[in-house]
């Protein structure tokens, strides 16, 4: 489908089981009927008081990164694209000029 705002093509992504269309141009997001409610439901599950954490997953502070770096570069304690399995494309990039 095409973005109703800038008419660029939209790509489909799966976020926690919810299908989301994101515009490749302006990065706007399109939600189908019921998807916003599904996301709100997921959000409320996250904000419920969590059980005590078993152990801190990251014992050391992340090393510094530049301001233009990815937010998930480590300082927020989040995950970048590396995750558990390295992306094939990055595996190739590691060995390329």
């Amino acid at each position, binding site marked *: 489908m095409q973005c109703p705002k800038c008419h660029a093509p939209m790509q489909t992504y799966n*976020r926690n089981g919810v299908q989301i269309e*994101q515009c490749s141009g302006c990065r706007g997001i399109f939600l189908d009927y019921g998807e916003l409610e599904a996301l709100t439901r997921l959000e409320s599950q996250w904000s419920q008081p969590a059980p005590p954490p078993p152990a801190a997953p990251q014992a050391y502070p992340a*090393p510094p990164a530049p301001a*233009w*770096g990815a937010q998930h570069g480590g300082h927020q304690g989040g995950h*970048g694209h*590396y995750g558990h399995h390295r992306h094939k494309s990055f595996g190739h990039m590691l060995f390329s000029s």
Partner: protein
Amino acid sequence: MNLLPALAAHAEATAHPTETTCACGPTTTLADREDATVVRHAGTVAKAHAPGTDPTELSLRLTTAARLPEVLLAPLTSTVTPLHDRLVTLWPHGAPVDPDDPDAAPWEAVGTLLARLHRAAPPTALPPMRGPAKAARAIARLHAALSDTPHTAAPAAASRTEPAPTLAPDPAITPDPATAPDLAPRAAPAVLRAWAALPPWARAEAAMPGPAYLCHGDLHLGQLVRHPAPHGPWRLIDVDDLGVGVPAWDLARPAAWYACGLLPPGEWTRFLTAYQRTGGPAVPSDGDPWAALDVPARALTVQTAALAITKAVAARRPLDVVEQALVDACARMVTVPRQLTGGHPD
């Protein structure tokens, strides 16, 4: 005779100077690219360097490797041999990092070898390290790819000034191929703007600032081998871009990968710490290294993004999530002023 069989014959003759037959098995092609053809026969590797390579400069680079066998793989001979219209050098075989197991990458060894390289006195008359020139070439290739495609600078992408939130796409879901070809060129304006914001020296338009250190010029995990294979010490290979310049450039590719969220913090720390502990001069021995790394890491991010777009345009495919992470970082660079580079003016 074409280059490849001639190069194979050269490697075989080097491996067996007297015998006419051998039982070592076939000669294998390790690389056959526009800029390099490499073959191996038994323990001998022959490399045909890029067309147009300067023989004097290559000889100086080869001699540098021969003089630093603790850091760089030493060539079998210090002579450069013309073969057809190319220059050929001879090397011992070494065992590379397994591309299927990048988790086994020897990050400590990379950091230690780079620090030793940067601490070595550069030979007189050694030409500049070619890192910035390679970045400029990547931008030239991007321009060429864009001029070959009817879709250029999309207004939606060009008007984007702020980083947009990124969704992690499900790899199982691929975009519609019918709309895919025009997605990659849309990423180009952000990359070109980030390039334009770099200082002239990082774009190979001016001499590199600061003291001239001995640098590798094109560091990545394919530039390491164990010699003797398979358990010998790690050594750096590929002297084509070796020269004098800003040593932070050699740290900039891992730095860019880390900054873009691709290289995990643990691997980045192993590499950087090993470099600092060995007394590498590119960054302070402790504290924030980013004043020195900022400009080179921006340049390497731009270079890698430009090559990714060029490949995607040629293949008429959209960028994948890793390539998009590089482009997104380029888009953010324009909104963040460059860090003060300690003693490095524009």
